[in-house]
């Protein structure tokens, strides 16, 4: 057999089997870095995919004060729910774009044949997706929260809960996004598949936000969100890779 073993992933200069080791295989880290760079570059060329969920989030959260009451004390009560429902729906909206283009143009196929772990490559893709949708959402949340009457002191809790929660949502959603690749107009199906997994994130995220607004200690629900994110990191890419493979058949 040839000179490559399962160590290919982390060793730095394994020589390729091809034609006397002229080429050097890319390490797993290099591959992940390239996928991140590629997705960020693509996102800046097709901005509407980033802007759409953010605009949705902004519109929904600003409609609450208009439709319910401008009274800050009452807005403050509904703020956690409003922020989190809007953030959850915006994340779901963005999920549709996660693998769709790559499946359509054959990129996923090439990922599957790259000799790299498909699980790892999809993890890199999902991370890029979170950087492009979850992080901007978390950064925008203070504005929306301020409009809903949340005090300045609560912003740390709100930003960190949405950042962690959206990471968990991106990862859990990746499973649904991969499963619905073969379905045309998959938006509704994707939401149905993802929502049951997303509900715990919504509950703990809203709880952390509520505690932050009240000025209490919000660490406990934040830890639970982190636990969901860790669960997502460990299991979701595996499931997504299996789903993508089924879709390639």
């Amino acid at each position, binding site marked *: *057999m*040839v000179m*490559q073993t399962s160590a*290919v992933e982390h060793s730095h200069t394994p020589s*390729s*089997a*091809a*034609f*006397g080791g*002229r*080429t*050097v*295989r*890319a390490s797993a880290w*290099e*591959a992940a870095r*390239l*996928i991140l*760079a*590629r997705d960020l*570059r*693509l996102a800046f*060329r*097709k901005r509407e995919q980033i802007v759409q969920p953010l605009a949705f989030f902004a519109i929904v959260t600003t409609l609450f004060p208009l439709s319910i009451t401008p009274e800050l004390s009452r807005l403050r009560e509904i703020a956690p729910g409003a922020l989190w429902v809007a953030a959850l729906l915006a994340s779901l909206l963005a999920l549709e774009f996660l693998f769709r*283009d790559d499946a359509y*143009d*054959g*990129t996923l*196929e*090439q*990922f*599957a*044949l*790259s*000799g*790299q*772990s498909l699980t790892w*490559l999809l993890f890199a893709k999902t991370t890029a997706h979170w950087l492009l949708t979850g992080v901007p959402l978390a950064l925008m949340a203070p504005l929306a929260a301020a409009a809903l009457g949340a005090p300045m002191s609560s912003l740390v809790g709100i930003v960190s809960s949405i950042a962690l929660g959206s990471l968990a949502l991106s990862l859990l959603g990746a499973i649904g996004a991969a499963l619905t690749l073969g379905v045309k107009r998959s938006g509704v199906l994707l939401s149905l598949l993802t929502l049951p997994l997303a509900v715990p994130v919504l509950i703990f995220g809203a709880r952390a936000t509520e505690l932050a607004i009240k000025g209490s200690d919000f660490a406990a629900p934040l830890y639970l969100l982190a636990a969901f994110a860790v669960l997502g990191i460990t299991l979701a890419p595996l499931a997504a890779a299996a789903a993508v*493979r089924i879709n*390639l*058949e």
Partner: protein
Amino acid sequence: MSGRRLQGENLHLWRGERHVLRAVEFDLRGGEVLQVTGANGAGKTSLLRTLCGFMYPEEGRVLWDGADVRTDMQTFHGDLAYLGHEPPLKADLTGRENLRYWVGVRRRLSTSDIDTALENVGAAAFGNRLVRTLSAGQRRRVALAGLSLLDADLWLLDEPTTNLDAKGQQLVSRLIEEQAARGGLVVAAVHHPLDIASTRLRPLELAA
């Protein structure tokens, strides 16, 4: 020369009610080109996708260097390059960027590697244009540059000459010849016979 070998053993594939591959057998060694022909729907694409491991045959095995590819798919994938009907290119990236990301996931490559490959397929002039502005034939050429950059022992090509002009078709034949001359293997599904030395050619006709 690396003595690599690809075998198909009694491959049977069903797609729903259709028996697509019926006892397909071949034995291909380094330096040889398997030319797969057959009418539309005869299963050329299915055969290539079965060899890739995307589809599982109901019966039979694919052997790479004598070992069933299913025992270590990832290593096998590291040795092969597959080019399907559509070039795997992103419309919103330039040809050059596409190669950097597509091939770079797999192997290290420098800017000059990309330049050389683009020149080699006559794509240097439009390598910096967004792929969405390229014609189908130009995209195909960029994809061929990627194929040679992947530097794989085994090429699996589905209709590699689609959308190419006469010169482009010669280019495909030349690339395949070069690959075989280096001791590589090529499996090509084609409608028109490839223009390469008959000593290298192993025909495989699929019945419809």
